């Protein structure tokens, strides 16, 4: 019997520049959940055992390693948890392999993103707990703010190398500016 080896997009790559860390996160299972018309409350109820409901627009919630993030119009991503049965309530798809998840944490994180993200990322406008669909340079992204200086990024898996390269350039540029 064949044995297929699973690989994440960047094989757990990690980079530290001037105290800021960029690292691939193995996000485990990712399920898109799109409630059918009028079913958002019911979907939220079904999710409650996980410790959160269906996320409001531009937000995410985390509980015991599981995470649910708003990911677009009438759509959320459930990450790192088994999806409860939402038959008839929502369309659910497996998105696990379609994305690369990156963590960007440290003093340069906000400024590094400001090189590519055309969005107001001041804390008042994009606080901890906020999520957004926004571009990273030419790439579409789900961006979550996990801390004042910490972000979680999800990008198309196929673009992982480009995304990594862009953020690496930004971090090194910022470090060179400060030197």
């Amino acid at each position: 019997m064949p044995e297929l080896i699973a690989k994440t997009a960047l094989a757990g790559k990690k980079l530290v520049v001037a105290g800021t860390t960029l690292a691939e996160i193995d996000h485990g299972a990712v399920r898109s959940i799109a409630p059918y018309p009028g079913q958002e409350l019911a979907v939220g109820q079904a999710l409650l055992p996980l410790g959160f409901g269906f996320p409001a627009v531009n937000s995410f919630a985390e509980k015991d390693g599981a995470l649910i993030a708003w990911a677009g119009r009438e759509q959320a991503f459930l990450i790192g948890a088994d999806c409860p049965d939402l038959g008839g309530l929502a369309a659910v798809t497996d998105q696990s392999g379609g994305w690369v998840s990156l963590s960007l944490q440290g003093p340069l994180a906000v400024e590094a993103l400001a090189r590519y993200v055309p969005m107001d990322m001041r804390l008042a406008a994009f606080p901890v707990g906020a999520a957004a669909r926004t571009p990273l340079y030419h790439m579409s992204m789900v961006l979550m703010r996990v801390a004042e200086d910490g972000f979680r990024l999800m990008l198309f898996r196929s673009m992982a190398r480009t995304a990594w390269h862009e953020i690496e350039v930004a971090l090194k540029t910022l470090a060179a500016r400060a030197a």
Partner: protein
Amino acid sequence: MRIAGKGLIDRSKPVNFKFDGKTYQGFKGDTVASALLANGVKLVGRSFKYHRPRGVLTAGSEEPNAMIEVVGTSNQTPNVRATVQEIFEGLNTRSQNRWPSLRFDVMAVNDMVSPFLSAGFYYKTFMWPRAFWEAIYEPIIRRAAGLGSLSGKHDEGHYEKAFAFCDLLVIGSGPAGLMAALEAARAGVDVILCEEDRLLGGRLLSDDAHLDGKPAAEWVAAVEAELRACPNVRIMPRTTVTGAYDGGQYSAVERVGLHKGPRPDLPRECFWRITAARTVLAAGALERSIAFPMNDRPGIMLASAVQSYLNKFGVVPGKRVTLFANNDGARAVARQLMAAGVSVAAILDSRSDASAVEDCPVYLGAQVTDTKGRLGLRAISGTHVGGEFALETDLLAVSGGWNPTLHITCHLNGRPRWEASLAAFVPLADAVPNLTAAGACNGAFDTLTCLTEGAAAARAALAALGVAAANAALPTAEGMPYVIAPLWQVAGKGRAWLDFANDVTTKDVKLAAQEGYSSVEHMKRYTTQGMAPDQGKNSNVGALAVLADTTGRGIPETGTTTFRPPFIPTSIAVMGAGGRGAGFAPQRFLTSDQASRDRGAPMIEAGLWYRPSYFPKPGETTWLESCNREIGYVRGAVGVCDVSTLGKIDIQGKDAGRFLDLVYTSMFSTLAVGRVRYGLMLRADGYVLDDGTTARLGENHYLMTTTTAAAGLVMRHLDFVHQSECADWDVRFISVTESWAQFAVAGPQARALLNGYLDQPLGDFPFMAAGTVSVGGVAARLFRISFSGEEGYEIAVPTRYGEALFRDLVARAETMGGGPYGMEALNVLRIEKGLITHAEIDGRVTAFDIGAAKMVSAKKDCIGKLASTRPGLHGPERAQMVGLKPLSAQKITSGAHLFIPGADLSRVNSQGHISSVGYSPMFDRDLGLGFLVNGRARHGETVRVIDRLRDIDVLAEVCDPVFHDKDGEKLRA
């Protein structure tokens, strides 16, 4: 020469740099201009047209004369203003637009023939013969007239782009800007303060003003310290705001590494896009010259520049200074020079009623009518109320008054207002929404009013933001009124320059008016005034005053030309930062990417994806050999190809079938679960949008595939249709393109391969079946579809298993006489089978054209159906898809046109074109797909294939587009 104790340079840090090959020494904080002037270098450039010797005129980014090339190891930057470029150890610069040297420039012969080179000279002279313009005249003129030169190489420098957001953007850090920033900072709002110079302070540093009874620099330092301690304030020195755009957005260019020299990872410049809720424009004002005869010699500078060099750099570029002015400002400059121990020959005040009391001779009612000294000013002469004067002087400081730096207020189409008391244009309020001009850029020319207006503008902004103001106390300052009597030009024998950078004189402007170009916009284009890198900052107002004088209209009636972004010359490189080479677009890589590259496959771009072109084997010398071998795998054994790039859209919901019926031409609601159907999608205008297969995975669950090229387009189309036509339907869809790695396994041995590989052998799995299978315990999806005409399957696994599956499938195929195939082989296989790609459905093609009219279901409506029935979209006049087979084994090409043999080869006789061509080993010749007028009725006819770009003239037989296995027996085997 340097003045002891003056200037904001660091005299403990000498810096060496080169200009025209010679090494000079300046100090940290010097610009190239200040360091050259300190070294006694007055001649720094040659003018654009007449190659006149030129020196430094200003001390800012508006400099029209002192433009130099900065030569780096990998960059050569032309037209750098020496007044902006800070020196650093190893900086290498040179003068431009001269040959063989700056002191001896043979093109200066232009100056001798200048009477012939007036405005419009080229238009009038090089009219005939017409053909000579591009080939002969223009190249010669371009070589003779010009600015800096480029290296001809790619600019591989590192540039940066960034976004910033704030509540209040303050543009400029003079008294008005600092006061505005301070007020807002104390109120706690987010402030961005942009300053073009390396130091905050603006004119406060140049003027040597006093605030609170102390030197202004002390107040500036205190304010800067307070601002730097505020977490809500971002100070951006060396940053010029270059444009105002809709929605409170501003562009700005920051000089990041230009003053440091090359360092790893340090960008040269950064292009900022700043979004501000409110903006205070405190950009100051620019002094203007007076158009007196021979006013362009090295050694003739603006009075404000002389003052800046004295107070900011401790440099006075002359031993015996004369001032020529029509306002009071120059008096302060004279007094400061004398206080610094510099000899002032005279103050020439053009006003006859001004005060004559100074510690130096004052000539009233004075006008300079001639100057002497070709490479540097030696003497001037002129008239005054008492008669004539002649003075030996090596530095003439001129002030013709001040122009508010209001450019940005005009970027959204606003026009400035002429203020006669200032003899200057001032900005209109609200010309840019949420922007307030304060201080000198608003026509306030004294320090006290600048401070007051800056604070008031910030308070107004705070009120608009709903934040209480802190009401910061103003320092005490001078409130001297600005007294000016306009003087635009002085009559005399010599030429009087308005636009130094483009060599435009008062005579040129008068000539333009004489010849009918009396509108300011026409005059500008006829004379080129205001079209140089300084964009007329030094000359616009003077030129239109001369034009107004010539035409007898007033200045307000004459008006100004339009100020457009960018405010300063901006490198294209910084605007395109990060976009060079591979940075132009994201690169999308397949899970099989490394495996394909390991096999030496050259990659081709398909949209943003990289796909293997072919897989070369040892001994193969051309791609065609590899391609033919790979075709053999599929036709004879089994081939494996990564098809993950095709768009995959997961569609679910009770109305999923209904939704597909709406977007596809044929019926999908009736498709059985576990089956796949081919579908065609039309645009709203009735033309073909895309094609692909859709599988029904469950009662309310479909999986659509799209072409690689149109994956994003189709997703957008579905979104549009859903939101605009049926937002209330029970349907949800999402792209799963990246979630599944999918591989085609095709050929007579395909089933055998899968049976030996899958966890359970395939049972009954007919053509167009879809189902779930298991590979090494991993749940996979299997579709029996074919893009080659052979028995074909596509197997999809979650993406993280993609690479492993590809390597396994290829290894197994190789044991069965097959192997991987690339895009070249895939293309030939589908042409042999007559299957279309976007080469065929190129956006101008209808379902009728590709022979798929029957696929537009009569039983239901669909997007584009009605439009597709419009006259002209079907019928014998349409070019219809056909196959094309050359009569002999000759090459044909896609893009070639089709003609009836014997017909004249003219455009109107083209009967169609070829869209795809591949060499078919099966037929041992090129096969083509193409579109021929009434083509389906013309099978068997011979057409002439003409490609004039590639010298193709071949006869070909028109045939059915399906060359191979017309009845599909192999597919269904």
